[in-house]
């Protein structure tokens, strides 16, 4: 992962316009890059090259679909563990090794490890949690969403 990277990346105004316009709404048409570029007054090749560069720079995670895990029949949840300070690295290694762990953040709280589990089936969540509990000997607090509130804005570059 490029997670440890801290260097500032330089974006020009055109990069920012692309980011602020296309966190969604990318055209579904035979030549979508041409259509997307034209809407911003850009050339198709320039648009594609900028996407490629921002992917290489690690500014973009990917360029493609954001799926609705549950509607696709998968499982998704947010979970947390209270990890004793002296076991943090060990538990972190165990949790990150699971392919079901989509992201994992240390947070400042007694519940100090927070991660998202994404599985192919809803049952996969309970299985993944059990594996983590067995491997770490620590209880996992499972907090699946009950309701999602709609957010309009994405990240402004």
């Amino acid at each position: 992962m490029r997670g440890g990277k801290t260097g500032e990346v330089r974006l020009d105004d055109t990069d920012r316009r692309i980011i602020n316009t296309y966190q969604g709404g990318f055209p579904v048409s035979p030549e979508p890059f041409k259509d997307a570029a034209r809407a911003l007054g850009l050339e198709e090749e320039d648009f594609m090259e900028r996407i490629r560069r921002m992917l290489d720079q690690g500014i973009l995670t990917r360029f493609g679909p954001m799926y609705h895990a549950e509607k696709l029949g998968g499982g998704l949840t947010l979970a947390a563990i209270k990890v004793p300070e002296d076991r943090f690295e060990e538990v972190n290694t165990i949790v990150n090794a699971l392919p079901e762990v989509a992201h994992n953040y240390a947070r400042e709280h007694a519940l100090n490890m927070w991660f998202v589990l994404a599985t192919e089936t809803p049952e996969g969540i309970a299985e993944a949690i059990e594996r983590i509990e067995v491997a770490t000997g620590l209880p996992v607090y499972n907090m699946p969403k009950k309701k999602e509130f709609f957010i309009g804005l994405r990240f402004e570059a």
Partner: protein
Amino acid sequence: MGLTDKDRRLITAIGKGLPLVPEPYAEIGRQIGMTGDEVIRSLERMLDAGLIKRLGIVVRHHELGYRSNAMVVWNIPDNEVAEVGRRVSAFGFVTLCYQRPRRLPDWPYNLFCMVHGRERVRVLEQVEHLAEACGLEGVERDVLFSARRFKQRGATYCLKSTESAA
């Protein structure tokens, strides 16, 4: 909506990203035995049905300068949480907002929102502003800043219609 085998192949094929070529849908179609038109129709159906929430750029917010990422959690009475959630999620700096179950006694909070900012002090100001604007000053809350990020791959999906979930 029901997914066909072709839909499933498409979901897997583009899960990690669209090819950066002038005709990406036709290109994907060639890889999985569909025409470009079939790919486009399948994507339109999945977008309409909300299976694809959005199509385009997925940013790595840390690299965009959003260094402070706080999970702001509130203990809202159950009969008010839907209304409060709607109001909180209308603020531009709130990037995600969910109702989740409490885990008593350790975890009394049932409304979770993410606030991303370029600086910690600014995030705290925004949380204060949010509390005032939504009448939540007296509500039990906590702000959990991220100390470190270990993994961010985003959820990817690999649907295999022939394989059971053993």
